[in-house]
């Protein structure tokens, strides 16, 4: 941009044209064949004038905001796109890896009890099982679930998270074993999460009985809106409106919903779904609060929002994205 005192000459008749060109660049940039050469061309165009650069920033920022439309994704649409993505990206390799993972982790159980089927998802995975009785189980990222293959209505959540919609049968209650706890359905929709540090069961509909695996004497009845959270030997029950629990089930639609969560908590959630990890380097950044809905695989979009809205510093180190204040 050459300096000039003549303001009239600086009035660009081409604002509309510049805006249109910026949008075309942005659209091109999203195509799969975008490479280093194209990026160099874009950089050259951006370097031609500040008007190009600011127009591009503007349309890019607006388009970024539409990322959260993924929140409107139905679970059905998500499943098909997920299946397609997995098939396209990984093909046979994925099947092989899944089989090995199942053998490595599920092998013991398979040998011990041939009446079980093992279902596993990798990081970022999501699948829905329909049982013989019509009950449905959706399993979330990085999960191992075993389901009894005979008439016994029983499942074992060895790791991860699953959402159960169980067809109720008073004579044959459905039982889920997670670690050293047993969850018995009494007509129900509920979600269970089980990982190293963390056990949680939340009830959306019906009733659930939570008991220690080998001791029915001490059991707890959970109603809709209740979440039981256990760490070690302690157990706490949270009572809330069912609608509040819906946020926690965003993964069924392929999204993470944050409503005033800390950046640290949000990063942990993303890390469950993605092999590239977010590291929050200091507590000042970790304690910032965030509100929003993001695709579970939308780490870049999330990091961008954190950078722009919260003003944190972001650095990429290989597979890690480091956020600091």
């Amino acid at each position: 941009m050459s300096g000039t005192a003549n303001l009239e000459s600086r009035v660009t008749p081409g604002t509309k044209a510049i805006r249109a060109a910026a949008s075309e660049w942005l659209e091109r940039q999203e195509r799969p064949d975008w490479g280093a050469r194209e990026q160099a061309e874009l950089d050259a165009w951006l370097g031609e004038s500040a008007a190009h650069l600011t127009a591009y920033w503007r349309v890019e920022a607006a388009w970024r905001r539409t990322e959260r439309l993924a929140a409107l994704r139905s679970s059905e649409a998500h499943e098909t796109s997920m299946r397609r993505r997995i098939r396209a990206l990984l093909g046979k390799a994925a099947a092989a890896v899944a089989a090995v993972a199942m053998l490595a982790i599920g092998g013991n159980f398979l040998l011990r009890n041939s009446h079980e089927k093992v279902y596993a998802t990798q990081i970022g995975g999501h699948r829905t099982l329909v049982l013989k009785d019509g009950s449905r189980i959706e399993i979330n990222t990085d999960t191992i679930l075993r389901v009894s293959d005979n008439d016994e209505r029983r499942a074992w959540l060895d790791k991860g998270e699953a959402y159960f919609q169980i067809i109720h049968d008073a004579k044959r209650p459905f039982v889920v074993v997670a670690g050293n706890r047993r969850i018995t359905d009494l007509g129900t929709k509920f979600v269970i999460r089980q990982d190293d540090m963390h056990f949680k069961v939340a009830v959306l509909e019906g009733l659930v009985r939570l008991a220690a695996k080998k001791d029915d004497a001490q059991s707890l009845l959970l109603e809709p809106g209740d979440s039981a959270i256990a760490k070690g030997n302690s157990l706490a029950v949270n009572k809330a409106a069912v609608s509040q629990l819906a946020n926690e089930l965003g993964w069924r639609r392929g999204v993470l919903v944050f409503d005033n969560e800390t950046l640290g908590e949000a990063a942990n959630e993303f890390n469950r779904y993605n092999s590239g990890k977010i590291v929050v380097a200091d507590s000042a950044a970790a304690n910032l609060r965030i509100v929003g809905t993001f695709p579970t695989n939308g780490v870049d979009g999330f990091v961008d929002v954190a950078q722009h809205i919260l003003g944190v510093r972001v650095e990429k180190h290989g597979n890690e994205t480091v956020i600091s204040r």
Partner: protein
Amino acid sequence: MSETPEIFCDGSGSPLAAAGMPELKAWFVREVLPLEANLMQFLRHNWRDHSDIEDILHDVYVRVYEAARRQIPDHAKAFVFTTARNLLSNRIRERAVIPIDAVSDLDALNVAIETPDPERGAVARDELRRISTAIDRLPPRGRQVVMLRRVDGLSRGEIAVRMGISEDAVSVHLSRAMDALASILFGDATDKGERP
């Protein structure tokens, strides 16, 4: 007003250098772009020839950018509106004909500068609804490509198959929709209605 932006750019450095300045870009996106609705209102109110408004808006952006490249101002809002105001004053001087009703409010501009920032949390909470509303205002084909891209997560090729049009046509609809969305999302957040 403690800061007075310079009116003329000095021509030093190239904008390309700024492409590698994430801090400046982050500031621009975070602090400046959200002012666009207010700024457009202000320009419409103070400049009679509405066919010029978008040119003036982008001229403001260029000047703000060029000044911020030297030093990012502490108070974005005051800085942006001061820039806009100086730019209008200069245009009036250059034209040597003063459009009287255009300048009548020029000294009352501080009012615009004082309008409070919307509370950020509330903004984030309403964001999905606001974006959905913005998409509703796109022409039918634009809306459709945006929904297929963002909601269904389809690629350009998949959208083309789904809509029965060529990939190039998808690109045209998509880039026009992106362009329109920028003006809807930044330009008229609450749609005050155009002044005649």
